[in-house]
């Protein structure tokens, strides 16, 4: 049931994507748009196929940065959320601070990380982490707060240690929320990685876009954008797959 519905959604999405590209191609040819303004999809695909090794190298760099930032945001985000809900004092004083920090435009902080961490991979991972982590924190806090009172009492009566209660009761209870946070965080981590590469980099798809822009190489900018869209979709699909796998115990949602 679930699998069939997924397959259906993917087929529908692919079809409309394909129709969009065909319309773009046809209109572009008909209106004779200059490639420097808007290249045709076939030109963009040819560019990618032509220099596929080069694009692969930059894509992998961006992918690794994204995954590292994402992994950090999940681990530290869940940890921070666990600390926040562990005491009313933290929740009252620390949580508003974190919400406030979340409202600082993180893209604007990116140049600071270059000052602090140099021009290597670290500042990019840090930015990806920073942009993604709040989604994890907010959803994990929500999930940990949603443990039903009866279940919390049960854990208490069973005389579990803090660790037992956290790993066997609270964390599994919060897992659906954490996973929906992860779905947002994975996209944000990719944004963070690109922003990091915009600020200063010699590698990655963000660098490809910036350097191509300098040379008015619009085809190359679009090639990087195509790959980025595909990467974003793929990463999102991976998290959706994880969600389905880890919440298989849940009753099928009515739609």
């Amino acid at each position, binding site marked *: 049931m679930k699998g069939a519905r997924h397959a259906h959604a993917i087929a529908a999405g692919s079809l409309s994507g394909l129709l969009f590209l065909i319309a773009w191609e046809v209109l572009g040819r008909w209106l004779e748009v200059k490639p420097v303004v808007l290249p045709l999809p076939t030109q963009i695909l040819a560019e990618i196929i032509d220099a596929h090794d080069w694009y692969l190298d930059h894509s992998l760099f961006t992918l690794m940065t994204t995954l590292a930032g994402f992994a950090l945001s999940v681990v530290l985000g869940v940890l921070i959320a666990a600390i926040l809900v562990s005491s009313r004092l933290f929740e009252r004083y620390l949580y508003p601070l974190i919400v406030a920090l979340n409202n600082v435009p993180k893209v604007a902080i990116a140049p600071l990380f270059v000052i602090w961490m140099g021009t290597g991979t670290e500042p990019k991972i840090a930015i990806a982490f920073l942009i993604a982590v709040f989604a994890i924190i907010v959803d994990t806090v929500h999930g940990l707060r949603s443990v039903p009172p009866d279940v919390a*009492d049960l854990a*208490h009566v*069973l005389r579990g240690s803090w660790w*037992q209660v956290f790993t*066997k009761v609270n964390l599994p209870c919060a897992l659906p929320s954490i996973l929906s946070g992860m779905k947002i965080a994975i996209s944000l981590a990719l944004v963070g990685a690109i922003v990091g590469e915009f600020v200063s980099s010699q590698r990655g798809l963000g660098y490809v876009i910036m350097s191509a822009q300098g040379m008015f190489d619009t085809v190359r900018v679009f090639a990087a954008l195509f790959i980025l869209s595909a990467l974003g979709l793929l990463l999102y699909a991976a998290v959706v797959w994880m969600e389905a796998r880890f*919440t298989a*115990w849940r009753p099928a949602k009515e739609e």
Partner: protein
Amino acid sequence: MNGRSIIEAQAVRKVFPGKHGVTALERVDVDIPAGRFISILGPSGCGKSTFLRCVGGIERITSGSLRVRGREVNGPPEGIGFVFQRDALLEWRNIRRNLLLPVEFARKPLAQYRDKVEELLAMTGLADFADRYPHQLSGGMRQRAAICRALIDDPDLLLMDEPFGALDAITRDQMNIELQRIWMSTRNTVLFVTHGIAEAVFLGDEVMVFSPRPGRIARTLRIDLPRPRPLSIRETKAFGDYVAEIRDLFQQMGIFKERDNAPASGNLMEGKA
């Protein structure tokens, strides 16, 4: 004091703090001998659940003395089973693994409890559902599983907080029969909180009647009816006399006011009407 008492309460008082501090329990004195089935009966909000939660170490008493097996309650005592109104099953674990949760928490070897799980499931008619998830079971089956979980490590004290309150009347009757059967094979001490008069009389060796807030024990009745009690015992005169006695008590306490012709707390009368 008494060597056979499993629960001793002296002048137990429980006040919930807050702007309008609520006194839930006031001077509760009781001595409960081991191996009995005690029904705790009272109107909603009379503190009977609070008393149970204090015995289970979930709530702390404000003053007085409350001992389980001679030891002052200071957090949940060892070797108790607790059944909640809503079953509190973990949705992401199948029924078997739900039953084993207390064993995991106690860090005991799971292998030793495999047979016990099957035995409990067979006893409650859930043998075919060990690998199912809670959402695949009906309300009555879920509550049976919750009872099995509470019994997994043979507790000598079983605390039940309106365990059948969320079930329909027919399922509730079934569960009463089953609980009696289970209890006759375990003979542990059970504190069973309910607001159903018929249910309290049907199940209990004794019925402890709580007064409205602040909760005190207004009266304790011995129920001298032979076991196993069939459902039809509810139509006998002896049973009716017990119910009438409790209803009179409730009337004296001002819980039922039949003169007003008000639909007097119909839920308290269910199973009798």
